[in-house]
């Protein structure tokens, strides 16, 4: 709870400084401990409150541990709760004193009030003191069999807590099989959900050492369990539904009938007001239909409306989470969302993280039919008071220009940006014009006319300045005063802070020299001299290199520095498709928000139960990516500035080396982890195939031991399909299968029928 370290923080006026107050509290508590006066509970409450508030703001109140325990003998439940909270917080640092609490907690575990039993059991398991685990086993065992479902939910989580304190104790007490039994038989859905969480965690942690555990882990996603949970899905709370759906997404159905049955059952979950439920359902739908291209596309169509509703209905934070997922879908299938581009328009009051995502989506969905509207809208943002967003939207216009065939109108817009004479607009536009010229050299005439009129004094940002200099060098034959601009830039060599700009300047002067030697010769000399004297290694080296090249042979130098260029047709994608697929496999997780697969941002220990079978499905991807990780990572590390860095690669080798150097450690660890994952999978998958029936038998046996409870595994499992469905299953499947996208008018009303 409150970090003890914070106690040393300089106390703000509103906070007591600590020491004196704590000893005050100590003596007051001591006085109250023995007293039996009426109304004593009220004064105790006040004191306890004080202790807890100190704890919250970061004052170490562990000194009063003994007194708190002494005061805890009370029947007042509010007092008890505060005491439990305190004890749970400080027991770890006071293991000896914690022993004192065991007595009263164990007594409370047998109280007649289920509330007290539950509370005591929870606190008992929260002590996190390793040498007290022996006291936990008994109460936990009783708790799991308690009549009251509240106590059982607490006990199930208690087992998990015990596992984390001492795994052998938990396994030896045979708790996991008990949990499994409860999961399949308990009438209370929250008990079932907690069992599922606990078992997922325990078995995926055990799986690395025990083969049986990994079999059990696989058994969780076997048909009987999945069907059992699916049939009860409506009983679960919304949070537990997410848990179940997350599990279902890992299930691999045998045939398409099964897929359609599951989709039928879960269809109405898409109408849930909780975004987490909807996203988990979408994950199930997407993963189930991966092998059926046409249906997969129908799923995209189907989930569009619920996603858009979620985006606009919650707080900005919630819509950000949904929007990130919409983003990944848009990136995968831009054409499906092309007609919805207006939903991605930014509103003035949206936070910038939302706007940024929307701009990316607008860029992605631009096609022949909507480019004009999108670019017009983006141009509105360019004059935005929010400068980062204004920049971002100019970049978006540029990206659209680079991906379109008909760019006339867009080029005009970009050139208008240059005329707006706002520093950042000019800067961004210059960079874009440079990229555009590399792809469409035929536009050089129009662009150069405008670029030529820009005063280099007004351009300060290194990237923009570099872009301007690049154009001066590349098109010096078309720009009347190119050598003279370069000359004045060279004169200011000393004042130029950016090495990138100086590198570009060197190259541009060289290029200019080959085209207009008489006018440039003087500048070239000055530039080379300045370059040789430069303190920056790269600049120095390049100047030296040019100098020697020129000394060797001028025509060779021209071939090296200014070879005839081909227009760039496709700029490198920012992310490799393997990475993207991996992110997609981890749909509805942080990977989507960070746009990175989980191995890049989570420690191995915390990959968690969610991932435990992902690798199984992705075996091929994982194997592939083990080989391809190097390029993938190198590209990934650079992310959004990639367009720029690729474009400059030819000139700035240093920069690209830096990039790969930066990603190298990343690669090492991730490749290692991928390989180790592979090792685990190969061992588990080898074992699991023959043993899956065994797992079901096991499940069956447990099911039989509790006679009155439902036995999910004893009969061939079946789904309780939506009984109100108007269409018979066959027609339903036909619809999903056959409807082409263009017919979705028919398709959506049809779905409405199914739903209501």
């Amino acid at each position, binding site marked *: 709870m409150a*970090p003890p370290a914070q106690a040393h923080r300089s106390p703000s006026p509103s906070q007591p400084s600590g020491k004196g107050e704590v000893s005050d509290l100590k003596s007051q508590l001591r006085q109250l401990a023995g007293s039996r006066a009426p109304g004593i509970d009220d004064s105790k409450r006040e004191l306890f409150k004080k202790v807890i508030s100190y704890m919250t703001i970061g004052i170490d109140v562990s000194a009063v541990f003994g007194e708190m325990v002494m005061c805890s003998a009370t029947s007042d439940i509010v007092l008890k709760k505060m005491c439990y909270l305190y004890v749970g917080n400080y027991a770890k640092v006071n293991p000896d004193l914690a022993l004192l609490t065991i007595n009263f907690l164990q007594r409370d575990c047998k109280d007649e009030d289920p509330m007290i039993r539950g509370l005591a059991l929870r606190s008992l398991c929260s002590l996190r003191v390793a040498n007290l685990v022996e006291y936990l086993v008994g109460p936990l065992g009783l708790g799991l069999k308690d009549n009251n479902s509240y106590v059982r939910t607490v006990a199930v989580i208690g087992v998990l807590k015990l596992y984390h304190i001492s795994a052998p104790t938990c396994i030896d007490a045979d708790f996991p099989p008990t949990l499994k039994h409860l999961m399949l038989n308990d009438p209370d859905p929250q008990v079932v959900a*907690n069992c599922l969480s606990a078992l997922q965690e325990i078995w995926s942690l055990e799986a690395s050492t025990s083969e049986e555990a990994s079999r059990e882990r696989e058994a969780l996603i076997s048909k009987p369990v999945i069907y059992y949970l699916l049939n009860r899905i409506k009983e679960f709370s919304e949070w537990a539904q997410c848990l179940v759906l997350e599990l279902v997404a890992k299930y691999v159905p045998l045939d398409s009938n099964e897929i359609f049955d599951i989709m039928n059952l879960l269809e109405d979950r898409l109408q849930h007001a909780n975004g987490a439920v909807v996203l988990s359902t979408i994950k199930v739908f997407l993963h189930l239909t991966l092998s059926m291209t046409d249906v997969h596309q129908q799923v995209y169509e189907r989930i569009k409306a619920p996603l858009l*509703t979620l985006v606009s209905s919650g707080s900005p934070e919630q819509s950000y989470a949904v929007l990130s997922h919409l983003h990944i879908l848009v990136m995968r299938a831009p054409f499906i969302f092309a007609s*919805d581009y207006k939903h991605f328009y930014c509103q*003035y009051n949206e936070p910038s993280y939302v706007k940024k995502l929307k701009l990316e989506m607008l860029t992605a969905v631009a096609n022949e039919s909507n480019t004009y509207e999108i670019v017009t809208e983006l141009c509105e943002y360019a004059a935005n008071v929010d400068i980062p967003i204004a920049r971002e939207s100019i970049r978006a216009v540029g990206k659209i220009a680079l991906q379109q065939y008909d760019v006339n109108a867009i080029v005009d817009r970009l050139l208008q940006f240059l005329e707006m004479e706002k520093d950042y607009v000019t800067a961004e536009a210059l960079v874009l014009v440079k990229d555009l010229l590399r792809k469409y050299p035929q536009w050089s005439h129009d662009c150069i006319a405008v670029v030529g009129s820009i005063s280099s004094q007004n351009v300060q940002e290194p990237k923009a300045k570099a872009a301007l200099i690049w154009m001066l060098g590349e098109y010096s034959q078309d720009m009347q005063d190119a050598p003279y601009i370069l000359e004045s830039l060279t004169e200011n060599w000393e004042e130029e802070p950016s090495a990138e700009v100086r590198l570009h300047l060197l190259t541009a002067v060289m290029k200019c020299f080959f085209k207009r030697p008489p006018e440039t010769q003087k500048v070239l000399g000055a530039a080379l001299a300045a370059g040789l004297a430069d303190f920056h290694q790269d600049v120095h080296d390049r100047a030296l290199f040019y100098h020697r090249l020129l000394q060797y042979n001028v025509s060779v130098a021209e071939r090296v520095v200014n070879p005839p260029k081909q227009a760039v047709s496709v700029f490198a994608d920012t992310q490799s498709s393997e990475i993207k697929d991996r992110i997609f496999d981890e749909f509805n997780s*942080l990977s989507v928000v960070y746009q990175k697969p989980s191995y890049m941002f989570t420690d191995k220990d915390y*990959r968690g139960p969610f991932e435990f079978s992902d690798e199984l499905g992705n075996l091929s991807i994982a194997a592939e990516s083990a080989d391809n990780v190097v390029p993938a990572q190198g590209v990934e590390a650079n992310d959004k500035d990639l367009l720029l860095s690729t474009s400059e690669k030819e000139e700035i080798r240093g920069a690209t080396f830096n990039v790969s150097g930066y990603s190298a450690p990343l690669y090492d660890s991730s490749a290692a982890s991928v390989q180790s994952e592979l090792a685990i999978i190969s061992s588990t998958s080898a074992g699991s195939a023959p043993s899956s029936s065994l797992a079901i038998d096991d499940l069956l046996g447990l099911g039989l031991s509790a006679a009155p409870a439902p036995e999910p595994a004893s009969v061939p499992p079946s789904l309780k399909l939506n009984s109100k469905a108007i269409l018979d299953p066959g027609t339903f499947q036909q619809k999903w299968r056959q409807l082409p996208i263009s017919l979705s008018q028919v398709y959506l009303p049809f779905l*409405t029928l199914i739903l209501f």
Partner: protein
Amino acid sequence: MISQFFVLSQRGDNIVFRDYRGEVQKGSAEIFFRKVKFWKDDGEEEAPPVFNVDGVNYFHVKVVGLLFVATTRVNVSPSLVLELLQRIARVIKDYLGVLNEDSLRKNFVLVYELLDEVIDFGYVQTTSTEVLKSYVFNEPIVVDAARLQPLSPAAIFMQGTKRMPGTAVTKSVVANEPGGRKREEIFVDIIEKISVTFSSSGYILTSEIDGTIQMKSYLTGNPEIRLALNDDLLIGKGGRSIYDYRSSTGSGAVVLDDCNFHESVRLDSFDVDRTLSLVPPDGEFPVMNYRMTQEFKPPFRINTLVEEAGALKAEVIIKISAEFSASITANTIVVEMPLPKYTTRDHGSFFVVADGESTQIVGGSEHTLRAKLTFSQESHGNITKEVGPVNMTFTIPMYNASKLQVKYLQIAKKSSTYNPYRWTSSFKPLNDPEMASHLNSSNLFALLLAALLFISRNGVAGSRQLLEKTEPEIPEFPKPNIPEFPKPEFPPLPTIPTFPKPELPPFPFIPNLPKPEFPFVPHAPALQKPGVPKRPESPHSASSP
């Protein structure tokens, strides 16, 4: 699976701090706060709701200026955690009545109690206010709601919540009324946020309504409720482009693009008669969220004209015409227009013209705002490109753009042992639609973009009826709105909760119920007025004290 949960004040103090799994280091709150405060990564001003520092994922939502934070090391579902944080804030609000720093600090023990039950070892147990009631023993210490500053409409939009903090009843689900007896109440609001973009010629480019039917229930015994919406409500416009206006040929039907429902809502008869049945859980929750792109009439039109008057001067003329009924008044109007940084007059980059008389606009009227600008440097050619967008926020009571209505609300008797002696009707007579208009004037002749946002609130009577029959004859009443509601008596925000009961005006949508069905409780003074509902001849006389 989350590791820690904490609430930080605006200054970064821990108000509550709960560590569930001990996987994340203790100083996480400080790391988090520093990161959020100095978020300058990539030139962004605002930290995203989710970020990762050294392998720890931090999630946060901002609620009334407080930061609700969760941390984890595991790759969890971000929307699950963010939904959860929002839900925790709502549950706390249900219990405390008012959610702010003061109330949280006063009730932190109660909040710990709630947190203990909501999450165990990082796993969500329950977030139902209803269920939690049986586990919570602390009495909330009520913070005086009247002292709260009602947030300006703009501030509400900055938070992005569609709820109106002031109008929502600031009443705890566990606290008793000062009179010692619990009032049976249910509140239903329709809150709509509208975004409209139109061109300078007044042509609508895009329009969308995001609406919520929000319910807040204080009924004991959890009776079932039926909520009837418009008969002609249609959902889903098929696969056509949602901006295809050809489909809306003025048939009068309300066509929603899509909607979603709260867990408790049962849709058994929804496709037959558009009624939702639900057993409302305690506390506040959205019954239904919907989204509509059908054409509708925006309540305001804004025209902006920027005229250059010499090299260093310009004049801005903003014309606002209110296109709603003259019986309705829009208030708390703020019009904002960002100006170039080099503007020397009209204080900096913003000017607000919502002073004096213009804070209220009566329906049908037209207002013109003029401002002269002086610049410190010569503008580069196109001043019109650099001003704007014009943003407008406002509140219009009794206005609902989507025409979605709650026709009636019916509370069914749950069991025969249920003793519904009291018949209480409470309702929020005032709709507080909130409208924020956003207008982007780009060029005199080019585009004039405007996005209008607004929220409308629809008060609906909750009526507890002693009904054995399941189908009461409920006459159709035209609208849930009370059109001629006296304006001055209902200042928008804080007054509603304290609305004196005996002054309840006869409410038009209480159905004509058979008289003997109401065994009035003698000691319930509130009952005299709402007794047998008649159509109000003159609500003015009834409600003016």
